[in-house]
């Protein structure tokens, strides 16, 4: 089963997703995918992994890490399915990152990897955009690169754990304007989801709604205003986003 958060006629609803991405409201109404505003399906903290695919680490000229490299995102950077993300003016390189996301379902502290999946609400997808021009070597990757307004599309929905029998063997793909640009498999992850839950919960309590974005494989490319960027994790979801200019984003926000 797929669970989403949407806004319709000014109200936020928890919905179930049915055939053709139609959503079923609690009162029984069925709405088409294009009729609703898709919101991020979870709103806790996001623990995002850097360099968690060996090929991607090599692409960035890094040695694979021996301990997970996790950085934190806050809810202001999330946006939903079918929304827009802005490319700042005067930057040279903004790239997407297609990632499988594990969503925490109950408080997790000192969880062993054998039991880790019991703590999940399910899986979703994110596009962990980065503006590489703004990288600095302090708490790298820094917030100006990774925690910008509306620059982390998440969704479209959460899929139940039982509906993804093998999360360590899923194809990840990114298309720009219909052209396949990134392709990999979660089988190449360095630290898998059970390991990451054990690692993080060994020193802190993970909360329901927290998310673990598990990193991206190689195959990055620049995106520019006008591009439609789709990231897909096989069996989990296909998340659509459109790049707009800084001026377009902020003028639309002013009108809203």
């Amino acid at each position: 089963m797929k669970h989403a958060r949407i806004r319709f006629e000014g109200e936020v609803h928890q919905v179930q997703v049915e055939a053709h991405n139609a959503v079923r409201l609690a009162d029984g109404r069925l709405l088409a995918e294009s009729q609703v505003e898709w919101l991020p399906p979870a709103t806790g903290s996001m623990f995002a992994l850097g360099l968690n695919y060996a090929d991607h680490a090599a692409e960035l000229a890094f040695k694979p890490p021996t301990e997970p490299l996790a950085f934190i995102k806050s809810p202001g950077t999330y946006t939903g399915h079918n929304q827009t993300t802005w490319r700042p003016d005067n930057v040279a390189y903004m790239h997407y990152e297609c990632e499988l996301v594990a969503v925490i379902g109950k408080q997790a502290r000192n969880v062993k990897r054998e039991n880790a999946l019991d703590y999940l609400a399910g899986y979703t997808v994110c596009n962990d955009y980065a503006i590489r021009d703004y990288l600095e070597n302090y708490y790298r990757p820094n917030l100006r690169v990774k925690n910008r307004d509306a620059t982390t599309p998440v969704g479209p929905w959460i899929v139940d754990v039982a509906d993804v029998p093998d999360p360590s063997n899923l194809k990840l793909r990114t298309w720009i304007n219909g052209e396949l640009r990134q392709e990999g498999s979660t089988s190449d992850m360095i630290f898998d989801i059970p390991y990451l839950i054990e690692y993080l919960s060994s020193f802190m309590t993970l909360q329901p709604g927290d998310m673990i974005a598990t990193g991206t494989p190689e195959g990055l490319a620049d995106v520019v205003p006008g591009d439609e960027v789709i990231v897909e994790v096989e069996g989990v979801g296909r998340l659509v986003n459109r790049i707009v200019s800084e001026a377009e984003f902020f003028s639309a926000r002013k009108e809203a």
Partner: protein
Amino acid sequence: MSRALHDLANGTLFGVALNYQGLLNQRIAEFEQAPYQKPPVKPVLFIKTPNTRNGHDGVVLHPHGERLQPGPALGVVIGKSSSRVSVENALEHVAGYTIVNEFSLPEDSYYRPAVKAKCRDGFCALGPELVPRDQIANPHQLDLKLFVNGELRQQNSTANFVRNIPRLIAEISEFMTLHEGDVLITGTPEGRVDVQPGDTVEVEISGLGRLVNHIVAE
């Protein structure tokens, strides 16, 4: 934590590292070298996750086998949504101030995000109360003192910020909105000290009161 503070300061906790001139200057030679290559250009930011929230008189657990250090800091509570705010208008977006004790394991390196050092349960105490903005004549002229078991161990002044509050709000809100209820932790000065189980840790900031926490073995 007082009711008003608890109700208002319920957003994201954003920390600023290296925001005291003394701390930055101590390490500036190191920051010219690898892996840093050059000193920071923009504010060095981190996030304290919601599980780190703690209050006045709260217990902070000392992790087994680690060193624990308090981080006395002035907390700025955002009063209204701030996106692309100018330096001139920045303080209009501030609801008030509180004391923050931003606990951390020691930071030998600033190269990678300090999740393991800073995001443990209860590692961000706020309180004792929210003092409205207008009650503080000059937030850049406040004495900050850390007491451990009544003994003064660390002392500085917000006059020594690298970036003052309007500048922090302007530079941060250029790329991410500061929302009502978010808290900006304006930095911990140089000279962090170790604390041990059994210690009582107090942070005092002029005009804001005293924030008390108790260290207990995990």
